[in-house]
């Protein structure tokens, strides 16, 4: 998850943040990190670029991107399926 946090910071240009600043279960959207809809789209690109996972249904987004932990779980689940 530390790697994922680093990738998120990089992809979203969160200049002032370090990976240790993001809690594993901290809400990413609305409160917590306060990300917006464009950030969500960038996270979808991140999944594709780094993990080759395609999230084609934008409605799944809120569930998957709820926190770093839920993102990590999603990645693990879908990477396993690919193999």
């Amino acid at each position, binding site marked *: 998850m530390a790697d994922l946090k680093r990738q998120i910071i990089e992809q979203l240009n969160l200049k002032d943040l370090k990976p240790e600043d993001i809690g594993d279960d901290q809400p990413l959207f609305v409160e917590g990190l306060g990300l*917006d*809809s*464009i950030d969500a*789209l960038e996270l979808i690109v991140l999944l594709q670029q780094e993990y080759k996972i395609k999230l084609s249904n934008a409605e799944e987004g809120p569930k998957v991107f709820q926190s770093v932990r839920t993102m990590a779980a999603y990645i693990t689940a879908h990477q396993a399926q690919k193999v």
Partner: protein
Amino acid sequence: MSSSVLIAGVGIISAIGNNQQECLESLEQERAGMGFMNHLHSIHKNKLPVAEVKADNARLAAITGASPQLSRTALLAMVAAEEAWRDSGMGKLKDLRVGLISANTVGGMDKTEDFFPSFLQNPAKGHLRDVVYHECGSVTELVADRLGIKDYLSTISTACSSSANAVFYGARLIKQGILDVVVAGGTDALTRFTLNGFNTLMILDANFCKPFDEERRGLNLGEGAGYMVLVSEKVADMVGGKIYCKLSGYCNANDAYHQTASSPGGTGSLLAMKGALEKSGLQPEDISYINLHGTGTQNNDIAEGTAIKTLFAARYPPMSSTKSFTGHTLGASGGIEAVLSAMAIRNGVIYPNLRLTTPMKDLPFVPEKHFLKNRAIRHVLSNSFGFGGNCSSLIFSTL
């Protein structure tokens, strides 16, 4: 100083017709312009429906007598602006101060993106003449040259409200006595640049769009151009042609919420509509028809719908989104829809909102599903809301 700004002529080209007459026929026959790509080469060719103008550049050039090497954006503009000019009968008049206010968002991007790949591989390749007209301002200059307009030129680029803004800026110049005649409107051609961009924002519908439907999934991109010839009362008397209507109200406001999404209550939209009504001295119940911005995205339609609910409070006029026919023509949409609004007044018609099967559950009104004629259309409100929170509303009224 002139107090009224009148519309003496209109010109339009879109996916549903290459001129006013063809567009009106399509609207009456409820025949939308979406389909799979014919002219644009893209990896999304058979996956994403678009609303292309049914003419390639060679055909557009033939209509207007311009060079087919020009960018599609400029060619579309020329076709529509020339139609408007002929329609107005201005050609016979001399010694008038004439301006062109033209809007677009893509400029000559269609030529540039064809040029770019070979250029990236080898900077010596590709014809530089293809990119000479890349920037937005040169499209305006090309159109001005074509129409022989020299006195005043201006280019606006404010996303989807661009050409609505061009229309009321033109009106202001006439009211201030700076110009006698203004050709105002906008143009945009389909490009891979915009298609890929909107695709990446995940607001494109993989099927034909369904504005103001509960099940809507996004917009379909379109292309085209729409221009009107605005004149002062004095000039209107001189030309003696049939005047369509007057521009009785307009307003622009910023939503100040997000770069691409609208605030949930549609604050910017509400301010723009309210301001336009105040300017025209009308009450909400005076409006005969609203031409919605109605892109078909989840976000726009609920924001716009909520703003209408707030403003019109139970006295809802008939309304529709003509983007269900023409797609979202971006920089041209304000101009195209202004032209359709003027045509609605002249012909006494209300356009349908196609493919509406399930009304939005949070709204207490439903757009018109069928073409209606023989109506007394006295005042039309036309909405154009762009990225960057730029919200504009125009009101056209009978004389």
